[in-house]
């Protein structure tokens, strides 16, 4: 049997925040989270803002150091073998972050160099990948700031895909997109799975998106992973018909409930 793509065990991350006066308070963004993702699997982690989804993605992207537990990606320690992990991972976050004055092609070229791809290697690959995400050829030279959010997010997907990641971390990739752009991005994620054999960790608060795209769905609530299993198992476990109802059954709150002060504080970091 092949090695799992991601093995996370008792992973813990805390942030320190200054409160009134000189007092410092520690807030746990992730509390002993454990899960495994098999190679080629698409796993969705659901959670409200501040639940710890982005912290999890940033830990696996080598952008954060942990406070306990372990995380391995294709056998490499995410906190010790960072160089090896970085070659295998790429991500798309809620903000399609680019050099705003540079064009889509220039931004992709720059990103590709960091992954060891020369100009010669990307000359044909960048136009091809931009075409695949439905980016109009006549707009390749336009600065990113002139593009719509949906268009920028497609370029972000193209950037991630350009480096052929074996693990793709998607942190709310469709948040804030209009319905059409959202559908196009979701369609492309499906295509990536089929064409690239990528393992995908999708963090989202869109339950429909999670249900449609993922093999298994997890719920991260206030830093705790309450479950991670196929949608039907989740529904059976709580005896409900929808993931919204499962969230209520698992947490005692609705997904849209107002957040406590502690949740808001956690949201600043997570």
């Amino acid at each position, binding site marked *: 049997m092949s090695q799992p793509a991601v093995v996370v065990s008792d992973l813990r991350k805390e942030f*320190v925040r200054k409160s009134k006066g000189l007092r410092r308070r520690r807030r746990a963004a992730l509390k002993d989270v454990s899960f495994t993702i098999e190679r080629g699997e698409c796993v969705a982690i659901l959670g409200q803002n501040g639940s710890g989804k982005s912290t999890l993605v940033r830990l696996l992207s080598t*952008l954060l*150091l942990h406070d306990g537990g372990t995380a391995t990606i294709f056998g490499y320690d995410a906190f010790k073998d960072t160089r*090896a992990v970085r070659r295998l991972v790429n*991500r798309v976050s809620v903000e399609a972050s680019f050099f705003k004055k540079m064009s889509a092609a220039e931004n992709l070229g720059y990103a590709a160099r960091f992954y060891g791809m020369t100009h010669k290697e990307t000359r044909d690959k960048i136009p091809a990948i931009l075409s695949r995400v439905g980016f109009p050829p006549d707009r390749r030279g336009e600065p990113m700031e002139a593009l719509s959010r949906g268009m920028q997010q497609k370029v972000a997907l193209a950037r991630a895909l350009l480096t052929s990641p*074996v693990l793709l971390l998607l942190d709310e990739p469709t948040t804030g997109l209009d319905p059409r752009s959202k559908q196009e991005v979701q369609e492309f994620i499906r295509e990536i799975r089929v064409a690239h054999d990528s393992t995908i960790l999708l963090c989202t608060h869109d339950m429909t998106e999670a249900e449609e795209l993922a093999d298994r769905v997890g719920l991260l609530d206030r830093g705790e992973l309450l479950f991670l299993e196929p949608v039907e198992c989740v529904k059976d476990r709580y005896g409900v018909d929808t993931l919204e109802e499962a969230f209520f059954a698992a947490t005692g709150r609705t997904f849209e409930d107002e957040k406590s002060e502690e949740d808001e504080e956690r949201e600043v970091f997570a």
Partner: protein
Amino acid sequence: MAAVQAPGVAAQIRHELVGLSGVVERNLYLVKRYFWWDVAFLIWTIANTLTIVFIARGVDMPKAEQDRLATALLVGGVIWAFLGIIFEIVTETVAWERWEGTIEYTFMAPVSRPVHLFGMGIFAVLYGIVRAVILFVAVVAFIGIDVPNANYAAALALLAIASISFIGIGMMTAVLPLISPEKGTQLGFVAQGLLLVVSGVYYPVSVLPEWMQWISTISPATYALRGTRDSILHGAGLAWADVWPLLLIGAASIPLGLMIFRSGERYAKRHGKLKRSG
């Protein structure tokens, strides 16, 4: 045992070199995109240097003496502009990425931090030399200074040696925005200003208070200014008295800069500051 094998040493070196070219390439794209801003800043620098160099024309002394003073001031202005831009570009490695929102993507990319920082440094030196040459030629042409004995090759060689130290010091200050996003950038500007003011930009270091003179001995700009002035005014070649302190400061500042940056990056990763909003 890892399921995906790591590349060999040759492949890793190739990867790093491609990454380094990427940093330079990206900065060239940005220069192209912000071209008119660059032109505006260059014109401002030329005008600013002229206001200083014209002081020499107002001093009651023979024309030849005026030219010497004007050249000494011009060298100060050009070196300030050259070293200032190197310092600024390297120092803003983090601040710039944070402003553009790309910091997370750059810091999670599989390229080593020294290569990333050296890429910024190489671009800064190339960009600084082009600006310095344009500035020098423009002011000389405008004010009509004659520098028949100038040894430009020695002046450029000394600037290249001095650049190493400035890249190293820039690495140390580049870490400040990682630790404190806003205050760090402010402190970077303060450090740049303090370093140049003690180095005798428009005046001999001997006119400074004693404690500032002591600090000037550890500033690479002191030796760069002294040596470049000698080369432009008197046609002097590379003087060992200027070269060895620059090599020594460079040899110390680069590893120290990398070490400080690495520690700052660890701090930022521990405290969740390695993100666009800090």
